[in-house]
Each structure stands twice: as structure tokens, then as C-alpha cells.
């Protein structure tokens, strides 16, 4: 039965049910309040803008990851792709005019994603295996192209990108704006476009999709190509922030992206998940790192806490089902 918010809250245990239903937002708010109380540096514009800058790269690939996971697949290659594409972008920035360098990097990202898409959609390879292989290939190619060391931006185009990536517009970091634009486009495509409808249909029942005359292969191909393109965009952003492209970038980002999507309540078997909740997942992970950094907690305990939060979030979602 569709109950209004007010009715929901007034039924016995309604508040608890409400909290469980919107658990991702709830955890996010609790973390924000907790952070604000525990550290007086947290609510400064410098810290908040740092936080947003830190999450933008992973945020963008998380959106791609969500779209892939909605079809019931997974893309393990995105972290390594960020490294390879950051190196490629640094090389291109030093060779070509900036718009061409950006365009070529995005096209190569699309192409690499298409390889995964082709293997999964038309060769029926398991997504885990196909993208695991690409993950190794991409990381290796990153080291080959860069000869193992970072490639610096040496042109005016590079300088422009570096300025763009480190500055803010109206107090919001530019790269966070790029991330938010991607979030908005993805929300619109998933909610109001046939593309999103079919991606979710395929993830919730692939055989029924096939027998409804949906071009299952085409959409499965497309989601990996999109994920690759978004990895390229993330690569451009992280390379620009540091003024260089390094084969060590994006280490285990694919795992953070999967974690963000899962914390956002998406089902790894496909068909369930939303961009807004994934955004919350990204921010939650970012917040945890941020507050632990402010409290001077070293990075290994940070990993333990992160893992604990993931387990907690998924347990909460099981309550929701009951």
C-alpha cells in the first residue's frame, strides 16, 4: 500500500522503518553530525572543498560501476583504466591541443570499455573474468607507456587543466561540479530514459528481457563502454589535479567504487540501485576517510573502519527487506 510520509511515520515503529528505508541518507547524516561534533576543522570551507575534490574521481567511476552493476555485471578494470588513461592524457596534453587531448582520451576510454562490453555481451564471458583480465592489461600498459614513472604536464593546455581542477566556482570545486553534472545526467538517463528502464529490466531478469524482444547484447555492451568513458573522465580529473599522469593512480579504486554502490543499497545481482544512493555511498566513504584523517588516524586502521561500515550498511539493508 502506498502510504504518505506522515502516515508512515505515525504507524507503530514507523520512525524506525523510515530510518531503515532511507538508511543510506541516515548514515550519511549521522556521519556529518558526528564529524562536526568531533572536529572543529570539519565544517570549514577548506576541508569541505578538499573532501569533495577527493571523492570526485571515485564518484565518477562509481556512477559507471552502478550502471554496470544494474545489469547484473561488474567492472573490475576501472581503477587500472584510470591509471592507463591518466598516463595517456598526460602524453596527449604534451602533444596535442587541449580539446583534442580530452576528446582522444575519452574515445580511448570508450574503446577500452567496449572491449569489456564485447567480451561480456557477445562472447558471453563472465563479467568478473573479462574485466579482471582487462584490469591487469590496463595497469601493465600504463607502466609500459609511462616507462614506469609519472609524466608531467608541460604545456599551457596542461597548466589550464591544472588550474581548472584545483579551483572553485562559487565555492564549489570545479571537479566536483563535473561529478555532479555526471550524477544529474545519469539520474535522468536511468529514471526518465528508455536506456535506464532496459538496463534495470535486464538486471532484474535477463531471460524475460530477451523474450520481451529487448536487445540485451547491445545494452550489456553499452554499459561497459560507458563505464570506460567515465573512467577516462575520472582519469582526466585526477591527472589534472596533480599535474601529471602516473601508472600508480587509481589503485583499488574499483573496490571503492563497488563499495560505494553497495553502501548505496544496490544489489550485486542486478536490477536494483539508484544514482542518488550511490552518491551517498561515495560521500559516506569520503567522509570516513576525511574525519579519520582529521583525527590523525593512520591509514591501516582507516581500512578496518571502512570495511566495518560496509558490513553495517549492508546489514541495515537486510532489515529493510524484512
Amino acid at each position, binding site marked *: 500500500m502506498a502510504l504518505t510520509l506522515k502516515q508512515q511515520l505515525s504507524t507503530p515503529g514507523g520512525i524506525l522503518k523510515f530510518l531503515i528505508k532511507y538508511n543510506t541518507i541516515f548514515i550519511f547524516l549521522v556521519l556529518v553530525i558526528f564529524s562536526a561534533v568531533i572536529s572543529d576543522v570539519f565544517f570549514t570551507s577548506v576541508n569541505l572543498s578538499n573532501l569533495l575534490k577527493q571523492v570526485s574521481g571515485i564518484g565518477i567511476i562509481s556512477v559507471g560501476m552502478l550502471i554496470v552493476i544494474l545489469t547484473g555485471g561488474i567492472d573490475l578494470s576501472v581503477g587500472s583504466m584510470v591509471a592507463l588513461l591518466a598516463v595517456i592524457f598526460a602524453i596527449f596534453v604534451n602533444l596535442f591541443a587541449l580539446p583534442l587531448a580530452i576528446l582522444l582520451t575519452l574515445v580511448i576510454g570508450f574503446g577500452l570499455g567496449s572491449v569489456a562490453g564485447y567480451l561480456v555481451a557477445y562472447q558471453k564471458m563472465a563479467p568478473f573474468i573479462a574485466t579482471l583480465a582487462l584490469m591487469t592489461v590496463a595497469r601493465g600498459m600504463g607502466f609500459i607507456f609511462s616507462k614506469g614513472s609519472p609524466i608531467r604536464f608541460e604545456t599551457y593546455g596542461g597548466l589550464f587543466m591544472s588550474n581548472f581542477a584545483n579551483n572553485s566556482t562559487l565555492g564549489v570545486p570545479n571537479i566536483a561540479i563535473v561529478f555532479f553534472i555526471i550524477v544529474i545526467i545519469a539520474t535522468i538517463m536511468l529514471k526518465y530514459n528508455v536506456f535506464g*528502464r532496459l538496463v534495470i*529490466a535486464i538486471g532484474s*531478469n535477463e531471460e*524475460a528481457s*530477451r*523474450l*520481451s*524482444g529487448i536487445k540485451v547484447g547491445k545494452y550489456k555492451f553499452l554499459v561497459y563502454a560507458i563505464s570506460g568513458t567515465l573512467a577516462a573522465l575520472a582519469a582526466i580529473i585526477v591527472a589534472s589535479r596533480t599535474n601529471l599522469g602516473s601508472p600508480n593512480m587509481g589503485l583499488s579504486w574499483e573496490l571503492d567504487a563497488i563499495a560505494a554502490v553497495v553502501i548505496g543499497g544496490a544489489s550485486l545481482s542486478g536490477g536494483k540501485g539508484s544514482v542518488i544512493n550511490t552518491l551517498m555511498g561515495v560521500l559516506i566513504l569520503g567522509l570516513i576517510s576525511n574525519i579519520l584523517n582529521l583525527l590523525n588516524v593512520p591509514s591501516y586502521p582507516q581500512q578496518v573502519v571502512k570495511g566495518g561500515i560496509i558490513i553495517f550498511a549492508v546489514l541495515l539493508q537486510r532489515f529493510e527487506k524484512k
Partner: protein
Amino acid sequence: MAIMEENKSEYRLEMSGISKSFGIVSVLEDVNLRVKHGEIHALLGENGAGKSTLMKILSGAHQKDSGEVLLNGKEINPKNTHDGQVLGINVVYQELSLVNDLSVAENIYLHKLGANKFWMNWKKITQDAQELLDSLGFEIDASATVRNLSIVQKQVVEIAKAISEDTKVLVLDEPTTVFDPTDTQKLFDNLFKLKERGISIIYISHHLEEIFKIADTVTVLKDGVDTGSMPTSEIDTDGIIHLMIGRELKDLYPLRDVVVGDTAIFEVKNLTAKDTLVHDVSFCVKPGEVLGIAGLGGSGRTETAKLIFGAHRKKSGSIFLNGEKITTKSPVEAVEHEIGLVSENRKEEGVFLPLSIRKNISVTNFDSISSSLGFIKTDKEHDNVRGLMNKLNIKAPGSEVDVKNLSGGNQQKVALAKWLSIDSKVIIIDEPTRGVDVGAKVEIYNLINEVAKKGVGVIVISSDMPEIMGIADRILVMHEGTIYGELPKEKFSEENILRYSIGKALK
């Protein structure tokens, strides 16, 4: 004798005053069910009447809110299905629950694995399982992997699993949906044997003729309340239907008053499959006609439907739509030619269970409800969905309800709505009313009739003989992968269908 000692109380099982609600929805209210020793007790009711919930409380899968369950006069309170099994309560659910990658024998003894001993004697287990299967009279190799079995064989294994030496109460929920009449008869023979052993059997089925063949007593549930029990000999079909739906059901099958066109709207010639047994299938459908396809399970009916629809690969043969030759190499091409298929396997192939009614219905129809860039026109979509929900009488609080929360009948209507949403020229409906209650059955029959009236070629595949004779204008009978015979309306009879099904000429 152990059995004699247990016979202290008249009833093997007494469930009294059982109530259960999920949240604010009350599913069972003060329900009573009493089953004697060695009795076959039919439990009837429309989908959603509470039969499955009552059985789940019995088996321990659900906990009752109030009431009392006595087994051999002693109160029992199973907390989970394992408790239930230990007490001797075994349930064969409608959904198959076998482990595909284990052998038949391992599946049959799965619940006993690791119970007593650390080491298993596989040879003995396989032998025991084989003996059990042989005694049931079905040919199944106990060492075969379950994945390679037919759906009929899987159902037999499921039943075998539930029968053991300590079974006291056996619950069968729609066990014959995948069986042809011969298999069903074999099952009944087995049930009679079990009955002689003193086992009490609770039998749930929508096939009323089965009830009259085997049941001693009938209990009807309606909207979570039992309308009482009575001996089967004191009630007839109309009486049961009246109890189930609370009204008389005079015309189960609609009057076929459609003028069938002369020229075929759809024709297949010498269709032969690459990967299945289907070969040399030829037939045609005229506009307005309902063509029935009958045959035993495994005769290639579903495979023929999937071959036409492009879901299976063709080796040779051709398909004509309105006299024009078309190809259907994939379901995408079939849908482009406006051919629809309602699968027999509703939950796995027909509907999207986790998605809303709206999203299910729209999935075939984006061309007419979205802009050229693929943006969905919400108003148009809602109008279209609402129109179809009204037309098909899909009972739900709204179009945003997830299909998994609907009853079998309403789910089937959603699966149909998908193809009515686009104006299909040919609709193939495989088992239109499997697992659907009587009330919804009638609605689906009327709907098929209406669709045919509009000039759509309708092909109905069904194992339910009264059903196919009731709605089809002409019946093709399949045997071993091809069409063995055709029956015009005046030759419709269960005997004729059966004779063709087993590859014999008519008398």
C-alpha cells in the same frame, strides 16, 4: 505396532484457530483443518486465499500468531522447516527447490547429509535413491545430475525427497502442473500406496477433477477463512467453485462466436530446430482463430513456440506473416514483426518480479511512449498502463506495486498485458492458466477470446485438456517433436487428444 500406538487420537493432524497476519494484512483468520490417519485431504481456494501460508505454518516456515497445532494429539510448534521434517511433516512446494549441480540421489538425501555421520556411503545412498525412484514407477537415473533432468523428472525427484520412512504428513502443493495425464495417474497410484501406509496427505490443486479422483475430504479456504470441511462424496464441482469464489460459475469457457477469416494470417512450413527435437512442423493460423496445441510434456510444444519466436535456433523451414515470408532469428526480430510470446515459465521468463506493474507492461512498448531520444512520456505511459490494468482487471492497489507481490493470476495478466500493449498480430500463449485460480482463469479465457475477435492470430499451448477444448477452434497434437494430428472442433475429446499424443490413430 508403532502406528497403532499413535492412533490414540482420531485425527493425525489438528490445526485449530490458526490466525496469521503480515504487518496490517491479515492472511489467516481462525482457520481449522483436521486430517485423519491415511486420509487424502484436498485444500482448495483461489490464489491468495491463504493455502500456502497455512502449509508454511504447518511445516515451520512461518510462525502462527495464534491457534494450536496437534500432531497425533500432541501440540507441536516447529520453529523452522527442519523442526517440521524431524516431526515427520514434509512439504513439496510449487517452486522446485533442487540443487541443480548435485546428483538425484544427493538431492533426495540432502536434508540428511551430515546429520549423523561424517562419512557418507555414496554407493548405498545412490542405491537407496534408485530403489525409491523405481518404486514410484518413474524412470530416473539416481546418479544423474539434476541439471540434466526434464522438468517432469525434477518434480518427481522433489516428491521422492519428501517421502521417507518417518513421513507422517505429506503436503503436495500443485504437484501435477508439469505432468501429463499418464504421469499424474502414476503419482495418484503412489499417493494411494502412501495412504495405505497411514500417511496423511494434504493435496493442494486447482484441478478440480483431480480432487474428485483422489481426495476423501475437501476443505475450502476463502480470503483467509475456512468455509468448512466435507467428504468429497457430498459435493460436486459447482459446489466447490461456489465455495471458492462465492458465486456460481456457469460459463467457465467463453462462447466462441468469432467469424474466422479465410486466409491465413500466420503460417509456418517445415520448421525444424537446430538444438531441440522439433522437426517438420507446419501449420497456419487464421485471423480471429484460437489455435490449440496439445501434447504430452516433452513433445516439443514449448520448443516449437520458442523456435517461432526466435529464442531457439532454426535449422530449416519458413515463416509467413500475412503471406509474406519473414525471418525470426531472435526475439528482437519476432517482436519487430509483432509476434508475442507468453512463456509457460512465468516467474523466470515472463515477468520481472522485482519491478512494478508499470515497468513490466511498458517494457515492450517504448516506441509509442517515448520521444525519439528515448525520453519516456510519463503521462502517456501512465494512461497506457492504467488502460490495460482496467481492461485486464489486474487487481492491485496501483501500477507501482511490484509484480512479485501479485497473485499468480494477476502476474499472468501482466505477462499478457505486455503483448497487448503493442498491437501484436500473433500471440503465442504457453500454458495460459498454469497456477492461476478459477476466477482469474475465466478472465484470461475471455481476454483470449477478445484478442482473437480483433483479428489477432492466437496460438494456445496447454496441457489442461478441458481448457484447450474449451477455448480452441482447432487443436494440433504434438508427438515426439512434430505435429502428429489435427482435431477439428467436432472431434474434440480427451480420448482423441490422448491417442494422438501417444502416437496412435483415432478409433
